[in-house]
């Protein structure tokens, strides 16, 4: 009843093909965007921006990158963090070595470099499938940070391989305050999500899903597997590269190659498993969960009598709960939080009736 499509008829094909066909959806999205861009900067404090909102948005973008590859095209990867590192270091070097290059352009170029590397490490996917691919992506995960540490040129000969954020300026506006960094991240994430939504609705996205569901059948009906798979690697690398730049410059400020280690790759993988494979909304839900859950758990422990669980134990317990959640999601709700949200929406549409 809250949520009805009664009376909303599509009279043209274009109207029928819209992403958000229902007036309520469009209204809710507009409201959300206005709230995120207009209201949050006014009411949020620095803690919220630095510890919750910025990492949430960046991790959503990274999840989106991996989801294009794993959730839509069905190619498993454990090298997400390496491509984030490649993007961040490439963007840093473009900023450093080309005078007056706009910030967003260097983010984009960093993304392109990561995309190129991703295609290189995705080449074995043309001959192998399934979890064999994790070896090739692990090769990226170990090789890329090693190169970044070993060759000082990439970090401008910094002794410990650390790179620092360039001045965050977009068209003359200084975005180095927490609010500014939040808005920068939000803008990039919204634009790239919009792009991703349209990619997965296009022929390419449909080809990816066909390859994911059964690649032999996809090849039989004339889908070019090399093209579909390598484009998935390229786009995934591009998204991860930009997420890496944002992680390094908008979130942390300074970063070293070891900040992008294997556990970061696992974190991104967990976001898409918990959020939902093959869903764009799922990345946001999964990232919110990954960012908020540790905070929730440590607050919960804070309520217990002090000394009962120390910080080391908390980390172990957190690890176990994460592991159990992964298994529980795979068993009970393989399509993740996004599916739960869908079910809820369907219920809201029928309420108070049951069918």
């Amino acid at each position, binding site marked *: 009843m809250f949520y009805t499509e009664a009376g909303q008829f599509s009279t043209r094909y274009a109207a029928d093909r819209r992403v958000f066909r229902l007036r309520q959806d469009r209204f809710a999205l507009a409201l959300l965007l206005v709230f995120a861009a207009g209201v949050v900067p006014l009411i949020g404090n620095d803690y919220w921006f630095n510890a919750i909102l910025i990492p949430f948005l960046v991790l959503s973008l990274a999840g989106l990158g991996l989801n294009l590859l794993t959730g839509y095209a069905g190619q498993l990867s454990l090298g997400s963090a390496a491509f984030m590192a490649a993007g961040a270091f490439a963007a840093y070097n473009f900023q450093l070595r080309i005078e007056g290059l706009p910030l967003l352009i260097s983010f984009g170029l960093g993304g392109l470099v990561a995309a190129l590397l991703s295609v290189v490490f995705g080449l074995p996917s043309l001959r192998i499938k399934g979890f064999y691919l994790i*070896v090739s992506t692990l*090769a990226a995960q170990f090789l890329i940070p*090693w190169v970044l540490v070993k060759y000082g040129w990439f970090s401008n000969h910094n002794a410990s391989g650390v790179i620092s954020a360039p001045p965050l300026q977009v068209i003359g506006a200084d975005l180095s305050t927490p609010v500014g960094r939040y808005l920068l991240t939000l803008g990039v994430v919204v634009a790239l999500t919009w792009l991703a939504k349209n990619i997965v609705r296009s022929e390419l996205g449909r080809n990816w899903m066909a390859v994911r569901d*059964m690649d032999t059948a996809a090849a039989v009906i004339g889908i070019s597997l090399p093209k579909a798979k390598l484009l998935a690697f390229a786009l995934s690398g591009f998204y991860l590269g930009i997420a890496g730049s944002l992680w390094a410059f908008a979130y942390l400020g300074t970063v070293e190659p070891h900040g992008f280690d294997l556990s970061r790759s696992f974190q991104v993988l967990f976001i898409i498993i918990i959020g939902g494979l093959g869903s764009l909304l799922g990345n946001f839900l999964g990232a919110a969960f990954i960012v908020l859950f540790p905070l929730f758990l440590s607050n919960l422990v804070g309520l217990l009598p002090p000394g009962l669980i120390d910080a080391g134990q908390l980390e172990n317990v957190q*690890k176990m709960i994460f*592991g159990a959640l992964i298994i529980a999601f*795979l068993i009970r709700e393989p399509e993740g939080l996004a599916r739960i949200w869908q079910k809820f929406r369907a219920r809201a549409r029928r309420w108070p009736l049951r069918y």
Partner: protein
Amino acid sequence: MEFFFEVLIGGLLAGVMYSLVAIGFVLIYKASGVFNFAQGAMVLFAALTFVSLVESGVPFWAAFALTLATMILLALAVERWVLRPLVNRSPITLFMATLGLAYIIEGGAQALWGAQVHGLELGIDDVPLEFGGLFVSQFDLFAAATAATLVLVLSLLFNKTRIGLSLRAVADDTLAAQAVGIRLRRIWTVVWAVAGLVALITGLLWGARLGVQFSLSLVVLKALPVLIIGGFSSVGGAIVGGLIVGASEKLAEIYIGPLIGGGIENWFPYVLATLFLLARPAGLFGERTIERV
């Protein structure tokens, strides 16, 4: 030239240690088609349990038996709460479930036994022995002998016993195996328990070498290239793959390392395995599968 052979032999023997981890993978993969990422966590868990028992005064063999019993309990639990609900799901789903399992076991092992490094003494000194002018570590030889025994026992188990026959039947065609009355649940439990035994032995050998600590669970990652080169479904392939990876990474570190800056041991096996995949996707001994719609 002598130096070359010493590096080669050292590498081959180190490779045996990788093979041990890889065998644990192959067992589970053969019997249930699951790529078990939690094998490394099982190695850590077994070694930590064993060391903690020994340190609290339990004699060696009693500790071994107790740890083995724990690993069997773990196998039962995994079958009941992870494999059974996920039966007939895609291999990638099962792989991700074992990722979750790895987190649970790692977290549990450290929550139970603490995160500090334990020393482990097996009574074999890590001293070099001389053979015709070449120096070989006694400990490495012991590890190689253990691996050889293990492979022998496993191949007897697989090829000569009734349970081995059922294991091979399940690996070949799960549905057909069930149709002739093989109990899938029991097979899975047995396989995970045997993999637990392999994890325990691996954990003891690696633990004696590196100390029992969290990084033990990372040896699992080194086993991946071994599996790729050897093929996922062959115990013999795991051994050969281990030898190739062990020897080539040591040789590469010595001869290529200085040219590009050293420390290449960390990634060299993966790059080698990736190149290998491009040439022979099924590995050296893996079975080539035919795809049908």
